[in-house]
């Protein structure tokens, strides 16, 4: 494989290490199977089919690959949860319901390199023993669904799908299932319910762990698009070699999506942990906008806790503890968790000093109030309550007790809901209020009561969950 050439102006940054995004923005590249095969596509599938399924799983386990959807759970371990004595059909679901605000990596994989995803799905299906795989793609990607549909047709024609794949006994079908605009379908049990044609109410765990009682109450593996693509590269490199990428507990590469107030927002595939927040913002994104200073960063999609410029964190470096600032945080799962936030889905949202944090929180709260499925009490009632409080603050009706109420509502949601959405909607409130108390006080001080501090609020909330 020759080193790819890229479209002018879209050349990857030298600090990047492109695996998943190798073919994104590549000149002369298209989404067809011919192009993909010319570049060595489906070779890894062939390689995997020569191995025992368990051996493939072992490779993935050895690679230390962690799920790229948000929780960072080791993929190989997840596969291992399927009961060994199972005699029901096994399903694999590709979670292409990328809806965490700030994350936009799946779009490029699906649009520009759909066969990479299909190959990843086929290898994974082989490993877990699934004969049917569904790609649950969000409704907001209509074009992506068409491209994947076409890719599946091509793969079928090329006998890479159906029975006797590549002349072996392995059989597998991949179907596209389009969502209809619900963030909660990114939660795996919510997604499964949605796929079953029900309201996507997440299931209680226990007893409904997908690997045991998943789709149609059969063992089901749900993996993110990026994670499944990584499987292909794990096969290509071998698990041990793959594990050498990145840092020991945070292996491989991952795609960071940067948006917000930086010069050059975009996507960057880096080795996990080999880049710090400061380098990401300054080197890869060209720094903050002119004349503006960094104020805050949400490092892993909108539900991750916000990090404030100027804060210091204590993280472990081997046996030692060290104190670092925001720009020094390595972009990996464990370091970000140690700093009180999370790597999540890799969506980095950067905010400069022109941003009103109450306004930002209100925007996030509006999102979560709109996306709460309404199944369980704390999230259903609390998400809208938090939004209403920030709405009122912005329109000049804040009262001093609001700050305390906001935090306590958040505390009453986090950890007490059926699914992780509870945390997702509570963490922004908890962290924003804790880290920018002066901004919230500004909206609730008696001096400012009655003054609508942000004229955008009206448009911002109109029509969404009032």
């Amino acid at each position, binding site marked *: 494989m020759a080193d790819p050439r890229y479209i002018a102006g879209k050349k990857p940054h030298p600090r990047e290490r492109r695996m998943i995004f190798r073919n994104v923005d590549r000149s002369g590249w298209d989404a067809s199977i011919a192009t993909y095969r010319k570049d060595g596509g489906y070779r890894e599938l062939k390689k995997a089919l020569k191995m025992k399924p368990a051996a493939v799983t072992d490779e993935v386990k050895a690679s230390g690959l962690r799920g790229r959807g948000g929780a960072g759970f080791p993929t190989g371990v997840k596969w291992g949860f399927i009961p060994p004595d199972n005699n029901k059909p096994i399903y694999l679901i590709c979670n292409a319901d990328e809806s965490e605000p700030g994350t936009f990596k799946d779009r490029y994989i699906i649009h520009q390199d759909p066969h990479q995803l299909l190959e990843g799905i086929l290898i994974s299906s082989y490993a877990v023993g699934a004969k049917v795989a569904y790609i649950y793609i969000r409704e907001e990607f209509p074009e992506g669904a068409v491209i994947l549909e076409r890719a599946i047709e091509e793969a079928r024609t090329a006998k890479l799908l159906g029975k006797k794949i590549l002349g072996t006994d392995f059989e597998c079908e991949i179907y596209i299932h389009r969502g209809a605009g*619900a963030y909660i379908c990114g939660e795996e049990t919510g997604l499964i319910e949605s796929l079953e044609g029900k309201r996507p109410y997440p299931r209680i765990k226990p007893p409904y762990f997908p690997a045991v009682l998943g789709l149609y109450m059969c063992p089901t593996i749900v993996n993110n698009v990026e994670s499944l693509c990584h499987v292909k590269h794990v096969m290509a490199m071998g698990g041990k070699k793959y594990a050498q990428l990145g840092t020991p507990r945070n292996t491989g590469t991952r795609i960071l999506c940067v948006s917000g107030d930086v010069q050059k927002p975009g996507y960057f595939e880096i080795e996990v942990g080999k880049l710090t927040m400061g380098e990401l913002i300054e080197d890869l994104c060209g720094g903050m906008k002119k004349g503006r200073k960094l104020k805050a960063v949400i490092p892993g999609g909108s539900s991750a806790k916000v990090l404030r410029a100027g804060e210091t964190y204590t993280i472990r470096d081997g046996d030692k503890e060290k104190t670092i600032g925001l720009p020094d945080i390595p972009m990996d799962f464990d370091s970000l968790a140690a700093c009180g936030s999370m790597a999540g889905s890799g*969506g980095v*949202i950067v905010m400069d000093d022109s941003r009103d944090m109450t306004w930002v929180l209100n925007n996030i709260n509006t999102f979560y109030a709109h996306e709460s499925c309404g199944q369980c009490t704390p999230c259903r009632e609390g998400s809208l309550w938090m939004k209403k409080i920030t709405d009122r603050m912005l329109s000049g009706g804040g009262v001093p007790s609001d700050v305390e109420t906001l935090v306590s509502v958040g505390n009453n949601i986090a950890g007490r809901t059926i699914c992780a959405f509870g945390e997702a909607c509570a963490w922004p409130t908890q962290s924003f209020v804790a880290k920018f108390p002066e901004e919230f006080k500004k909206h609730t001080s008696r001096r400012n009561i009655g003054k609508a501090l942000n004229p955008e609020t009206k448009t911002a909330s109109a029509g969404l969950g009032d």
Partner: protein
Amino acid sequence: MEVPKELEKEADDFICHYPQEEKGSASLPLLHLLQREFGYISDDAISWVAEKLGTEPIKILELVTFYPGFRQKAPGKYHIRVCRTLSCAMAGCHQTMEKICELAGIDRSNVSHHDPIAISTDGKFSIEFAECLASCGTGPVCLVGDDFHEEVKPENTEQLLQQYK
């Protein structure tokens, strides 16, 4: 409601994607088909899907009202969905929204949670805010029908609307 033969055939193909006893799984695909055909999901469409899948109509109504992707009233000829989530909001989606409404002659003062869509007086455009469209690096973004548009700053809106005649 008259469902064309080809559409019914397409629906049957979708149903085959799921195990025989789990026909309910095809609810979303079927609703997508009907919305593509008729522009929105009517009461008849709900009954049709329920009958086709052998389920209660309420179970389909549950889905239609849950997912913002389904509309229960006819949109304009071109339906615009402007992303309003954080990155796009920071990039100025609210100004974009205002500008589009101004150019297309849409009054959004009456939209509510239950009726988020506003239609232009000439019926050509309809608009609503959507949650994250997952292209946060190139905001503000919007979908016009199935077409995706990036960096729709207020100054680009006129050009955008002109593409739809």
